[in-house]
């Protein structure tokens, strides 16, 4: 059985950090590709960018949980590494779908 973060401040804070990091990464990618396009280079950011963006977002969010000393408590709550990854992956995938889905149709 995999235990996720319990509802409440810990889950909320992880989701908020995920959203912020995702927005920052996406803004950076958009800025960089606009810059490349202005320089006349082909820099279309298609659906293929979703995977690296998600990897970065999840790594930053989980890294932050370690950095801020949340792990000893989470482990005592029964939340293992997979449980810690779930909220960031879940919200990250949802945000990527929202962003990329309109282009697919």
């Amino acid at each position, binding site marked *: 059985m995999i235990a996720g973060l*319990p509802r409440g*401040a*810990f889950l909320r804070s992880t989701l908020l950090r995920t959203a912020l990091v995702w927005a920052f990464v996406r803004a950076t990618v958009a800025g960089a590709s606009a810059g490349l396009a202005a320089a006349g280079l082909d820099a279309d950011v298609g659906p293929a960018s979703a995977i690296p963006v998600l990897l970065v977002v999840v790594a930053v969010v989980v890294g932050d949980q370690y950095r801020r000393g949340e792990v000893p408590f989470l482990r005592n709550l029964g939340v293992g590494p997979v449980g810690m990854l779930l909220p960031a992956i879940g919200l990250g995938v949802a945000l990527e779908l929202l962003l990329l889905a309109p282009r697919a149709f």
Partner: protein
Amino acid sequence: MPSDYPLAAEGIGKSFGSLDVLKSASMWAEPGRISTLMGRNGSGKTTLLRIAVGELRPDYGALHFGGRSADRHSLPKLARAGLMFVPQRGICAPHFTVRSHFRAMASAYDLGDPAPAIDAARLEAFLDEPVRVLSGGERSRVSFGLVHYRRPTVLVADEPLAGLAPKDRDPLFRVFRDLAEAGCAVVTSGHDAIDLLRLSDVIIWSVAGTTHHLGSPREALEHAQFRREYLGPGVRLD
């Protein structure tokens, strides 16, 4: 048999690079009793406790939890089955309030009213403070308030007395005693010899990569080598 105990680590070996910290060390947690690991700095007490609860992988040795054997343990899994591990720095997340720790615990384990635990640990005044603004002793009260609330079946606490003023130890002792009386198997460690000898039922001596189960605190005090090599001459119970 160690495997009959709720938590046991048997014949554990662990090296860090060329440093052989543990060669054949064992510990077991007995229901209803407080067992305490004592030993010189660097003798491997923390290493052995972390291996026992699944926070570190042993090089060799056997681990048991709840009658089952395993090559390695995982703390989240043991925690869901009723164990709590409190490392020396406590278990609190510094950026979250005291209240959100109790709420998270309530939600993870479906626990009832936290008021008695909050009361016993004297935490009302700090409930809405983030843990990072609390003093070391106050943080320790939060950690053990959470232990009191969770009521684990096995509690492993590394150096729970470190940094606590003598007067502030009594409430902690009460939490440990209370849990043990309810059948919890408690394992601790530390250097506050007199307090720990008073608190404990069983003394385990960690020395030279191995462990010696000395029996009751009284028996430990009568162990000439333990007295000579760890306690020193000044320590007595009465």
